[in-house]
């Protein structure tokens, strides 16, 4: 199908990179223009829209009261789901969830969990019986590459503005639409997941769709305040250690810039 990036173009992308150039003129460690908007849906406890260049995702936080997991009776729960909407790309057909959607959900989940961003012990109502469950639902609106990082930023943004709904203790009901005034308990430092992509012998961040098609493998690193809390390698090609270290360094380098940009929106 001609919706795939032609091999010729992929060869060119690789060639250009060896000279340190990208199709859209960016540097190898440069992210596209970031935009974050809040309030995609007033029915969500919190929601955000994130744009990285032309890539767009929306993320919503919903909450509900339920039973805790047996091995964490005094902690709230988290469930992250991602959906690749057919409307976001000609490549997505109707049918069961593609692996990429599952991957996005899992990687964002890992990034949130391992960084201890959400203070789960503050989401307990009655130990062993009632805890808050946080649902983070991610939807793609336009796929122009790097949905992973856009989703990660969206999840942080939506959580940052999310407010816990009122709970009617007597009737054991969540009063959706009525805020308790309390925000979701979060730690101060935001965890940011950055995915480094290997294209030929070079490593880039925030690829466009064409660049992502040219990438052989990728590593997503979740960093909070300089500390790596999560990591995941995707795709099947192997990486030599030198390139691996290059990828970690690139993620760390980009983290600072991206952190500043995100903080601006969260103010």
């Amino acid at each position, binding site marked *: 199908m001609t919706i795939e990036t032609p091999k010729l173009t992929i060869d060119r992308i690789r060639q250009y990179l060896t000279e340190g150039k990208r199709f859209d003129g960016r540097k190898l460690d440069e992210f596209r223009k970031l935009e974050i908007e809040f309030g*995609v*849906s*007033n*029915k*969500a*406890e919190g*929601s955000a829209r994130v744009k990285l260049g*032309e890539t*767009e995702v*929306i993320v*919503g*936080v*919903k909450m*509900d009261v339920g039973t805790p997991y047996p091995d964490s009776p005094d902690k709230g729960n988290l469930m992250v*789901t991602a*959906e690749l*909407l*057919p*409307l*976001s*790309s*000609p490549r997505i*057909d*109707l049918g069961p969830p593609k692996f990429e959607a599952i991957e996005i959900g899992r990687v964002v989940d890992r990034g949130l969990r391992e960084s201890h961003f959400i203070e789960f012990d503050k989401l307990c109502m009655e130990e062993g019986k009632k805890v808050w469950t946080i*649902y983070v*639902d991610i*939807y793609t*609106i*336009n*796929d*122009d590459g790097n949905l992973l990082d856009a989703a990660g930023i969206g999840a942080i943004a939506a959580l940052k503005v999310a407010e816990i709904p009122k709970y009617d203790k007597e009737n054991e009901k969540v009063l*959706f*639409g009525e805020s308790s005034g309390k925000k979701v308990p979060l730690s101060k430092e935001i965890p940011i997941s950055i995915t480094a992509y290997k294209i030929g012998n070079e490593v880039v961040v925030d690829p466009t769709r064409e660049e992502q098609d040219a990438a052989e493998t990728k590593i997503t690193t979740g960093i909070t305040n300089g500390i790596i809390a999560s990591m995941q390698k995707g795709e099947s090609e192997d990486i030599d250690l030198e390139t691996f270290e290059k990828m970690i360094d690139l993620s760390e380098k980009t983290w600072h810039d991206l952190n500043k940009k995100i903080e601006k929106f969260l103010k």
Partner: protein
Amino acid sequence: MTTIKRPDGRKPDEIRPMKAKVGIVPNADGSAMFQFGETVAIAAVYGPKELHPRNQRNPEKGTLRCTYNMISFSVDDRIRPGPSRRSMEISKISEWALEPVVMIGKYPGTVVDVHIQILQANASTRCAGINAAAMALAHAGIPMKDLVSSISIGKLDKSLVVDVNKAEEDWEEGEGATDMAMSFTSSKGKLTHIQLDGHITSKQLKEAVRLGREAIKKVYALQKKALKNVGEEISE
């Protein structure tokens, strides 16, 4: 028509503030957003393109295929991601509402995919979806006889109202609420879709449909303006 006090203070024939915007998904062949008050729908169109699997292809003309879904956080009670019977029904209804104007006889064996997503819901979601879808189809350059414009008409107790919101859907006084979603070809006013839930006489139903046909003129004006000003958010 007896005057009734609507929960949000609107006049009986007053539509909630509407917004429309064409060209919101860069990857799509055509895309649009339509809003009735707090109900927000987006639609994207891809096609005509080859239909797979081959055995589903129509050798005589193209196939129109619609999907309608609500995102999990579009409503108070989170909707589990994935299709439901309700969304499958509305998908088909939307397809039938749009089909009479779409002319894809020139593209046998192909499919035109219309994807509708509800981002925020306050009733009349299928109407907002159809309005967005009609704009997206035109934007995609699909040959069409006309646009389709959709609106909901309600009967609250004995009174007819235009553009039903959730509070009105749940109206309980007197005869309760009757909810009627309907779609028309925009310039000629021919009915392409109607659904009804409630309690109504045939006389009042006829009145309701005429009321709807009149009300869509405002919807059409907005859809037209949005298509003529791609990329701009138009409010009326």
